[in-house]
């Protein structure tokens, strides 16, 4: 309901603004017919233009939805120390992980004996 009212206000403002433009054009056309020099628009047209602009702005502002707060921390809001405090460059690999992973024990043995030699020779 509220949004609808503001949309009507916005439309009224728009029409009024269009009307101002039309009157201004008409005024200048009339001046040309009665062969008078143009100096400036009459004050009622200027006032109408200004008021209709303000009315339209008011309508637009309230009909498009609520404003959102600008927050500096919006990206950090759902971060926890678990991810923010995780430091990949300082990982240490000598921990229980290798024993907890199901197949790791066998692979570790396998690697230490046979593969590490192949691996080193491959690298060098």
């Amino acid at each position: 309901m509220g949004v609808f009212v503001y949309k009507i206000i916005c439309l009224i403002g728009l029409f009024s603004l269009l009307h101002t433009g039309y009157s201004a054009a008409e005024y200048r056309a009339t001046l040309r017919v009665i062969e008078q020099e143009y100096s400036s628009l009459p004050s009622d047209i200027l006032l109408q233009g200004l008021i209709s602009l303000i009315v339209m702005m008011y309508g637009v502002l309230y009909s498009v939805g609520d404003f959102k707060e600008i927050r500096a921390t919006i990206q950090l809001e759902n971060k926890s120390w678990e991810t923010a405090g995780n430091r990949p460059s300082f990982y240490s690999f000598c921990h229980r992980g290798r024993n907890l992973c199901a197949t790791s024990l066998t692979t570790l043995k396998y690697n230490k004996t046979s593969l590490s030699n192949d691996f080193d020779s491959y690298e060098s």
Partner: protein
Amino acid sequence: MHWEEVRDKFRIWREDNSRHSEEVVDLWVNYLQSQKHKLGDEQWMVEEQVFIAGLDCGRLDVADQCFIALSKQFPGSVRVLKLKGMRLETLERHEDALTIYDAIIREDETNSTARKRKVAVLKSQGRIQEAIKELIEYLSKFMSDGEAWQELADFYIKEGDYGKAAYCMEELILQNPHNHLYYTRYAEIKYTQGGAENLELARNYFSMAIKLNPINIRAYYGLIVSCSSSITSSKLTSSKKKEIQKLSDWAQKKLTQRYEEEKSKSIKMDKLQESLNSLCITDKSCSS
């Protein structure tokens, strides 16, 4: 699971710095490995990620495959050489790893990752004091490295040197004044130190963390415990005590509110599930 989903997931984990090593290895082996040629240039970042994850869970078979692919693609690369050092660390050949890192630093003095790895080696050997010394030397050269400051803070906490740990957190807050987690951390350190002054600081920093992020539950709890431990001190004037009591009550109210919200959310979810179930024709199809 589609390989593109896995790729996006990996990308998020890479950007967030989250560890998830076991999942990475699992998803790689089951879904992504066979499709890796479709990844384009991203393939090499993923391979590096999987390599590190593989080392983390001791899956050297997976890690070695990635390593071989990487060293074929980038022969003579320093970054790959660093990965080799990390592999040696996993095999507990710390001295060999250190030689590699030293070689990298000799070649490229500005290489910060190799220096950080040296600290990590000392850490996994349990030589904390030496690691601290090395890290301080590193920080005197690369003082804008937040990760290193965090690490140093953790070292000091491990050693029980809370004053110095607090200094590191101050440095981090200066670097990143919008991060509520640093405020919470700093407040926790101050709370652990104890004493009327430190408790007051802790209260202030917990409050600041709440101000920055009103859903920081940890900060609410911190505020409550720091209030309740400073209220027992006999030196406080009664007006001050009243103020602290008010603060504590407020935090408790907020916490209860937050829990109520979550509760009503889960009730809503239950109701949604119920209505979904009633829509089903067979019972079994939506048991989840």
